[in-house]
């Protein structure tokens, strides 16, 4: 229900999920630590290239990127005039500072670069794939279990919420800012929670009946071959290049 296809099949999806997850974490952390505009620009170029390699479906992808940039736009509205510093220009009583614009620019570049890396490397996985990859990377078993369970039931509960809401609308429910709306929404939410609770108990009993003993047996088999290693090395080289650029620091205006 919440799954939207963002990517067409590409060679990126054939790379081992653990390798992709590891590379994504490394590259995202490396990008988030940057403080140099040129290094960020190179980082954005690398991540855009990765995104292109993942063969995206453009329309849904652009919607996602727009949603990510809402916060960035909010920062652009506030930061340029709220950061004190050298005056760049004056708009009425607001002084736009060089430091403020630089900070906003840095944040926009970094936010988009990290989002693109995440989309290209992790966004191409399904939730179960990510869960199993996390398990193989020695994430706590209970946490992986919780994640897989949540991922499984999100769709079921989303459907249930839709049914409840449609039923309420058919009975003449029109949302507005009043106590009746809040009471109705809270009752629907309460009903959703009660039903989830009951479903959880049923599922738990069914799993006990099938011999659930707390361990999770995955049938997904991961193979990391020379190609995966090459991919990881290539990304590592890119990260090293970006960090070198950051440390050497080309002077800018």
């Amino acid at each position, binding site marked *: 229900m*919440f799954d939207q296809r963002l990517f067409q099949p590409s060679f990126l999806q054939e790379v081992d999920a653990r390798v992709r997850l590891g590379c994504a974490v490394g590259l*995202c952390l490396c990008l*988030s630590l940057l403080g140099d505009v040129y290094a960020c620009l190179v980082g954005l170029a690398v991540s855009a290239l990765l995104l292109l390699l993942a063969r995206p479906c453009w329309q849904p992808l652009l919607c*996602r990127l727009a*949603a*990510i*940039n809402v*916060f960035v736009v*909010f*920062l652009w509205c506030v930061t340029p005039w*709220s*950061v004190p510093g050298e005056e760049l220009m004056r708009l009425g009583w607001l002084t736009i500072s060089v*430091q*403020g614009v630089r*900070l906003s620019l*840095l*944040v926009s570049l*970094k*936010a*988009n670069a*990290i*989002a693109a890396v*995440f*989309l290209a490397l*992790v966004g191409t*996985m399904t*939730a179960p794939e990510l869960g199993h990859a996390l398990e193989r990377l020695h994430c*706590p078993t209970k*946490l992986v279990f*919780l*994640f897989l*369970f*949540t*991922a*499984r*039931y*999100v769709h*079921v*509960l*989303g459907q249930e*919420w839709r049914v409840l809401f449609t039923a309420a609308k058919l009975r003449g429910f029109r*949302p507005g800012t009043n106590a009746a*709306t*809040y009471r109705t*929404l*809270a*009752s629907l*939410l*309460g*009903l*959703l*929670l*009660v039903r*989830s*609770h009951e479903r*959880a*108990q049923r*599922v*738990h009993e069914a*799993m006990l009946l099938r011999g659930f003993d707390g361990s999770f047996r995955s049938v997904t088999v991961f193979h990391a071959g020379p190609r995966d290693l090459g991919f990881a090395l290539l990304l590592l080289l890119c990260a090293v290049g970006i960090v070198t650029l950051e440390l050497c620091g080309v002077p800018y205006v």
Partner: protein
Amino acid sequence: MHIAEGVLSPGVLAVGYALTAAGTTLGLRRLDYDRLMTTGILAAAFFVGSLVHVPIGFSSAHLILNGLLGVLLGWAAFPAILAALTLQALLFQFGGLVVLGVNTCSMGLSGVAAGWFFRWMSRVWPTPAGRRTAAFLGGALGVAGAALLTALALTCSEQGFATAAALLFLAHVPVMLAEGCITMFTVEFLRRVRPEMLPDKDKEANHA
């Protein structure tokens, strides 16, 4: 409430990860396999509930529900919120890998604190009016704490974000009230329909 990637400084990100790791470890330790399904499905309900838009004046806001989750789950709310936020990052790219620590920490800590507050208050004021107030304040405290911690994370990262952080917090004041009302009505609904879902101490207060 989700901070975009690339905004926060390394120090703040590291503190976020550390607190999230500690909270999640504590939450998982308190969570046995018998409650794992319930927690997982409640985390899914939290995910779905947080997509619900509530009208506030001329605008609308989506619920956060971390206060309600803290009331229902206690410390186990921490791993539940982590799981739900990871899923949100994967499916919608709200938040992401790098800020996952800070986001989980801001929502989880305030959710757990809201749960504590709810339990404490329903113990000291065990009348129906007291329990309603406790639920309202619990829900509002969940959002207030999350907004405050998010604003704090922004300000600590870069002094220049202080104004943006203050605006962000102020924008959440109406959401606090709405969330408080929703939490109050939901807890009231659960008490009537399925009291065993609410924390034990509260039930004792109910019988007394």
